[in-house]
């Protein structure tokens, strides 16, 4: 069976019902999708299949034969990060980093479809992705800034949108 991963055709030997996550991690050494729950409940394994975010832990490889699969390994090119990757750094949207790959791919799909900086739309696009370090505000800030086409200074961290309450700096 052939699957195209980040533009490269790969031959897969696993059986047709093997989850894509298992094939990526254990057979092809594509390690950005993580085995967080393997029940579709946490979003750490999200990859793009023909541009759509999918939970790779629930997706049998037979369902992606011939499809274009994209992971975090395929985002930066020639050492140049994508705007959403830069936004993640500048807005401090990663703490332990374990959820980051899944969030980045869901955010990438959202932005490639012209997603706006609207909070509710970002929330819907990232729904089902869990961050247990509870960095959601920073993640929303990063996606919204990327949606606005901002440029990012990677030598500093942005002020967060919730660092003041009623005008009082916290």
């Amino acid at each position, binding site marked *: 069976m052939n699957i195209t991963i980040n533009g490269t055709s790969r031959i897969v030997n696993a059986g047709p019902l093997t989850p894509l996550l298992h094939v990526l991690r254990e057979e092809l050494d594509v390690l950005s999708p993580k*085995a967080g729950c393997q*029940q579709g409940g946490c979003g750490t394994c999200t990859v793009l299949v023909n541009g759509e975010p999918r939970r790779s832990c629930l997706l049998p490889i037979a369902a992606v034969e011939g499809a274009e699969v994209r992971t975090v390994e395929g985002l930066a090119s020639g050492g140049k*990060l994508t705007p959403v990757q830069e936004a993640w*750094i500048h807005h401090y949207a990663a703490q332990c980093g374990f959820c980051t790959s899944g969030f980045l791919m869901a955010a990438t799909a959202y932005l490639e479809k012209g997603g706006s900086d609207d909070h509710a739309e970002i929330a819907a696009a990232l729904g089902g992705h869990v961050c*247990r370090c509870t960095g959601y505000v920073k993640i929303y800030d990063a996606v919204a800034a990327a949606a606005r086409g901002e440029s990012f200074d990677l030598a*500093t961290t942005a002020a967060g949108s919730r660092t003041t*309450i009623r005008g009082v700096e*916290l």
Partner: protein
Amino acid sequence: MKAVGARLPRYDATEHVTSGTRYVDDVRIPGTLWAKALRSPHDNAEILSIDTSKAEAMAGVHAVVTFKDVHKNVHGHIEGLGIPGDEPLLAETHVRYKGQPIAAVAADSEALAQRATEAIEVTYKVLPALFDVRKAFDADAPQAHHWGNWYPHFEGEMDRRQIRKGDIEQAFADADVIVQGTYRPAAIEHVPLETQVCQVVPEAGGRFVVYSATQAMYFSMGVVAAHLNWPLNKLKFVGGTTGGGFGGKVDTATETITTLLAIKSHRPVRWRWTRAEEFLFSSTRAAWHMEIADAVTKDGWILGRKMLTLHDAGAFARFSPYGVTKHAFHHTGAYTIPNLEFNGFVVYTNRTPSTAMRGFGVTSVSFATETHLERIAQTLGMDPLEVRMKNATRIGDTSPNGIPYTDPSTVPVMQALSGAVGIELPAHYRTMTSAIRSGEDLPGHLVAQLGNPEDH
């Protein structure tokens, strides 16, 4: 100081967003076996027999370990702090919580390792289980632990962490009102997105490399070495990258058993818990039962506190005596109460053992104290902020265990927070500082407790 106040980028942010960060499960060693554990299906049972022969005979199974393979099966995580060990690495004669590991297997695949654990035959005599700390002291309560239902080994072989300060009976005699409350925060699972995981790789020279997700590297190294009776230089720990821990990866959950399997199989072994294992069997924040009675004056001074804490340790002590000690030292919260009678028990139940989580031992008492202060304010018909500002710790006030505070922050924090939520404090509290008490801030009942911060 270039860093304080500066908006520096994370040192590891670029690695995180490019998937350059290598978590334990991302380590790739050719020929690595998968580990699985056989876990107790019972909350409390005697083990009558363990037969691993069918699992050992399965093709593709390279090692099966039980208590017989462990040099020192019972080792306390913090024996160095005087907390004796009570928990077997692999159960021998008794299981005391559902999910307690009894045996472990290393096999060619995850599925095969799972099937092999299911081929291990264990017979049990099931016993009644204890789940409610309030029933632990009843004469007819099920026995949850071989030391009895509460930890008996605090210093001086006391069966509780105890604090006595000032004259509690006088405080209650002088009170206008006694305000009582009971507070019972539940157990909480940490739910790190990375489940418990490690990989252990034998080296040709006899050393073992342990890739660990632990939050406590050298501590975990000591625990593994103690169980094996090995010198530390036979272990090389590689860690520092953790996919969320929140206290739940302080316990040495996987490293020792995986090392045993690597020793016995002479192969690299990986043990990654499933999400179900993480939820059901990994340690949790403890459930707590706290009863508070405060002797209070009608103008809002807290003269004294009697408090009983029952900490639900689950089946084994682990760090619980340490957590209850911290809890005891903080049991008045951010406030000064000069007369105290505190009794804190580490109670055993047949629940999953509990451990550290974000503010170990202290968040429980913060919840209880802050809720109780609201109750006091409601009882007296006072502004809850005024009750807090009045009793807030100041320089020179002493903690429950008698240490003078040198830099308490209750007053400025309360002032900042009241501003943030748009509440205007009365003039006296707007200008109050943390300075040593005097004038109307130093009523007679707080004189004797004052210490000299310079003595600390």
